[in-house]
């Protein structure tokens, strides 16, 4: 499962027990504690200096995860541990790059969507490529009454996404945008910042080479020997470790 072709530090992969479609028991436990888990020794100095250190201008080598990131837990403890703030960043674009459909990329979001909809926040699906299957969503705990499926012509998808994000009354906006470039993503990022919603953009894996203003970029690929491998390509607010990977067992 270690992908030798990628430069990176020694293995930081973690097995994650997914809320599995196949209902396999969460047998796999973390093989090793993730090196990047926020290690917080309750030092006396820290307590005294807490006010100073919380200042955004102060950066300390040890604090990899910036606590100020407002985030929605992903529902997967191992992924949360890797993400600053412990989840999907709120008010920011999260890009999910995938090679094919059917790699578990949407299942990644389901716990967060379930939590959001149960807190009575709207979730907008803008021009999804297939039919989001209601029984699967309901099974994952998503409150369907809060889910809105929006049909939009290709020319209108960006406008729609921006409106939904800017309005600030949607908890999450999921986009399958037909054409994406840096400028458009930047607009979405700004809209998400002003509205404070989670914004997910699904793009083909080939886009990984392009620069992106997204706060979080994940590449989802099939792992050798089954399962899903998630690579953290970019993550705002996270320092030090390059390209950690999480493997989701199917």
């Amino acid at each position: 499962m270690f992908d030798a072709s990628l430069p990176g530090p020694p293995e930081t992969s973690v097995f994650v027990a997914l809320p599995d479609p196949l209902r396999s028991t969460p047998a796999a436990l973390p093989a090793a504690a993730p090196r990047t888990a926020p290690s917080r020794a309750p030092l006396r100095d820290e307590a005294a200096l807490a006010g100073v250190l919380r200042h955004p201008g102060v950066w300390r080598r040890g604090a990899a995860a910036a606590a100020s990131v407002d985030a929605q837990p992903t529902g997967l403890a191992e992924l949360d541990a890797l993400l600053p703030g412990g989840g999907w960043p709120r008010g920011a674009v999260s890009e999910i790059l995938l090679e094919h459909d059917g790699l578990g990329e949407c299942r990644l979001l389901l716990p967060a969507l379930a939590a959001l909809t149960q807190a009575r926040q709207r979730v907008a699906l803008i021009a999804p490529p297939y039919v989001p299957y209601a029984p699967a969503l309901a099974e994952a705990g998503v409150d369907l009454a809060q889910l809105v499926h929006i049909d939009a012509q290709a020319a209108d998808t960006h406008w729609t996404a921006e409106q939904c994000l800017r309005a600030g009354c949607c908890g999450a906006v999921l986009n399958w945008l037909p054409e994406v470039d840096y400028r458009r993503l930047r607009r979405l990022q700004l809209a998400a910042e002003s509205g404070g919603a989670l914004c997910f953009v699904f793009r083909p894996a080939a886009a990984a080479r392009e620069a992106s203003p997204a706060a979080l970029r994940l590449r989802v690929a099939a792992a050798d020997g089954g399962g899903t491998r998630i690579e953290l390509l970019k993550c705002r607010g996270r320092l030090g470790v390059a390209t950690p990977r999480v493997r989701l067992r199917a």
Partner: protein
Amino acid sequence: MSWACLRFPRLPLQALAAADASEAPFAVVDGPPQRRRIVLANAAAGAAGVRADQPLAAAQALCPALAALPRDTAAERQALDSLAGWAYRFSAEVAVAPPDALFVEIAGSLSLFGGWPALQRRLRGELDAFGLAYSLGVAPTAAAAHVLARHADGAAIGAGQLVRALGQVPLAASGLDAAIVAMLRGMGLRTLHDLFALPRAELARRIGAPALLHLDRMRGLAGEALPRWRPPPRFERRLEFDFGIGTHEALAFPLRRLVREFALFLVARDGGAQRFTLVLGHEREASTSVDVGLLAPQRDADALFELARMRLERVGLVAPVHALALRADDLPPLCPLHRDLFDAQRRERLDWPALAERLRARLGDAALRGLRCVADHRPARAWRFAALAEADAAAAAKPGASPPRAAPPPAPTRPFWLLPRPRVLPAAPARILAGPERIETGWWDERDQQRDYYVVETRAGQRAWAFVRAGETSGWTLHGWFA
């Protein structure tokens, strides 16, 4: 009771579009064609000596350039009605008294608007904005208020001073017939005080019962019955333009005016609009109508304007627009949205109904839909789209944060994506991860299916939901992705 009378003395002139503003001498005339009489003349004609009640021939002799139009009582009545709609915001009891007056009962509204001085300031401010000439008076009876509005603009008297204040009014302003006034003046009477001093029986014989009743009503000795004005159940306004409007941008201005008027109407009616129609009138082509439908009743002028404009922009203008009309027949009561008082998640600038309307206006009415589960074993029928209104109702009906969770049966695995149309799996699956799950049902509606569903992994590592015909092992058909 305390009645405010709003009198619009120049209404015959001002009801005729643009007649009042014209610089040229102009008059409104009335009467049979052979004996036209001046009803009202504008300032230019007045300067030339044209007076009310003059024969038209005499007026034209004084002012040869005088243009005359016959009086349009229907337009006056319509203007009064729309003024009544405006006044209805200040009181629940409004009465229209053609040809030129409006009565508003203000005793019940004074504490709400902060007393008569504040209410008067507000009335005057808004009336000034209309650009109509007006005068107003307040008295315990409507007839007395009318007299005061005619004689002393701005006078407000209470019940105690009523008779004394009326006594100072000259007979010409008393609202009695001109013939009676002339007769009384011939008898040497000058003010209402002189008239009130006369013995009642004598007076009745001289001026007749109707005039005496008028005097009694003025003093509150006889009851008054005013027809209470009711807001109309529907709204229709039409603006006509002197020239054709060919662009959407230019059309936005009259549209804004119409919508603002519409919103005022809705506020006065304490209702909302759920459906209204814009009609674009062209010179030759058939008029275009644009329906604007909303999910929930609204009455905010800005929101309605924005929606109407977006709908309008989706419609091409086949020809220059010469008239714009707004029509609304269905005006349901407005239920304001309830919000939690302590809602931590309130960062929003636009609430959900407003966003939904904006999206629908651009993407189409059916673009926003909810999803629902349907109790059916056939995968393609186990879900459906739901109209958004239904989805919102369901969301609103839900108490608290927890969705109703039926005791979950051991649900079989279902994929995130369902293909709208199953398609052939290009290559045989690499591995079978789970299955088969036989779904064999639907014999009752002739759409029966017998399928074995499997969770399979393709050679690319994708997890797919595929089926074969029951009992077979080839002919894989893809029906969903475990995305």
